């Protein structure tokens, strides 16, 4: 029930605890109505949040939700000082709702258009991705084709053609790893080409190339071995032995054979001993030598030692 306070003068006032209230109490509605209002308000508030990207709709739905709330009803009556009757509320709510309809339609259309554009953009991106993947696959295929061709030509000792294929392949290499692989292949072909020069006996021609390769790859056993061959063939045995030394340490059999060949074991007299007739030796040089060993069989028997010319 509503109550208009402040009418009775203070000196006449009675039962102040009983006579109190506000002229704008919450509308008297039953539980079912209240539930319906809260439900309606909740629906419109959810709609307002759902349309948060469209402020006009958020505002309109929020306003409808607000007037449906009993608290909102009371607030409007208090602040705007008028009776927010069911009729006014219905008309106001309907006006808000009807106002919202063209906006809903407009935003639905706009959303649909935006979604369509997004779909087109995604499809375009997808197509571009597929095209890029296809291009990339073609590039890789080309790269592999020339690399395989180079490998085949290398097998058949057509090194210049193999190098040409490596050059073609270089046009299709983009990543660092691919470029490294190409470099490795190129160096490998060049090394094999140089080895073929060694096999053909063109040692002087091969030697500077081998030295270049070794500068880039110092520990390469094949390069060392081939350079050792070249050195040995042009008479630089000492340099050849130097190249073979690390290979001998690692137990390389080819290197051992070459080393035996160019720097074989030799024998020389280290000193002489007195050989007794029972097979023993004596340090004595005078009359008593080998006296208890059957006498002297050889006064100057040479003792040999092994050595190599290039140590």
């Amino acid at each position, binding site marked *: *029930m*509503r*109550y*208009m306070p*402040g*009418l*009775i*003068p203070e*000196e*006449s*006032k*009675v*039962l102040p605890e*009983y*006579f109190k*209230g506000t*002229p704008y109490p919450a509308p008297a509605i039953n539980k079912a109505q209240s539930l319906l209002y809260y439900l309606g308000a909740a629906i419109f508030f959810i709609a307002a949040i759902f349309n948060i990207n469209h402020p006009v709709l958020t505002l309109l739905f929020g306003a409808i939700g607000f007037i449906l709330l009993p608290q909102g009803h009371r607030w409007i009556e208090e602040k*705007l*000082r*008028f*009776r927010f009757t069911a009729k*006014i509320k219905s008309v106001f709510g309907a006006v808000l709702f009807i106002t919202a309809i063209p906006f809903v339609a407009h935003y639905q259309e706009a959303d649909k258009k935006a979604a369509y554009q997004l779909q087109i953009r995604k499809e375009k991106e997808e197509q571009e991705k597929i095209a890029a993947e296809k291009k990339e696959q073609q590039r890789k295929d080309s790269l592999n084709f020339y690399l395989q061709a180079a490998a085949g030509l290398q097998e058949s000792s057509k090194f210049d053609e193999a190098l040409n294929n490596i050059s073609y392949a270089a046009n299709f290499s983009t990543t660092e790893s691919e470029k490294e692989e190409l470099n490795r292949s190129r160096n490998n072909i060049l090394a094999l080409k140089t080895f073929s020069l060694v096999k053909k006996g063109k040692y002087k021609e091969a030697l500077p190339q081998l030295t270049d390769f070794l500068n880039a790859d110092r520990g390469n056993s094949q390069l060392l071995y081939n350079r050792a061959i070249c050195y040995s063939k042009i008479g630089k045995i000492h340099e050849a032995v130097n190249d073979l030394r690390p290979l001998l340490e690692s137990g390389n059999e080819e290197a051992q054979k070459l080393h035996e060949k160019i720097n074989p074991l030799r024998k020389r007299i280290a000193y002489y001993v007195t050989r007794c007739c029972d097979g023993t030796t004596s340090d004595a040089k005078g009359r008593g030598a080998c006296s208890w060993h059957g006498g002297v069989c050889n006064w100057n028997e040479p003792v040999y030692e092994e050595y190599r010319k290039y140590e």
Partner: protein
Amino acid sequence: MNHNLFKTTNLSQRSFFQKIFKQYPQENAVIEINNLFASKPLFQISKDNIASIENKYRINLLKEFGLNMEEFYAVYLNYCLKDKTLGAEELAELKHLKFVLNLNDRTIDKLHSKIGEIVYKQILRRSSFRWAAYSAGRSFFKEA
């Protein structure tokens, strides 16, 4: 009924929205009733006066502002009981007030009981004070 119990109050101005929706401030109906009590003797106020105000504001005063109607009655009842007695004339006035304000018997009984309780307590408190003073006086004179 002008015993300075009620004072004339200015009516509220119509708000913008009340003008738009052709509404009158309903609290003005209560203010007009108050002003009626403040300006006219009680017996000159008729039920028609109240009804015309209700018609003007399209309101059922007892339903909407029942508490204010009860308060008008309670204030006058309290005034009548100032001398702790209700004379025939006062009873007639209260009966007329009840009729004019359209208050039911149950509400009237409730208000009588609430106001009566306050008056009874006042009488009781005053009697206790007098008895204490009387006893103190007697013992004083005895001693003298």
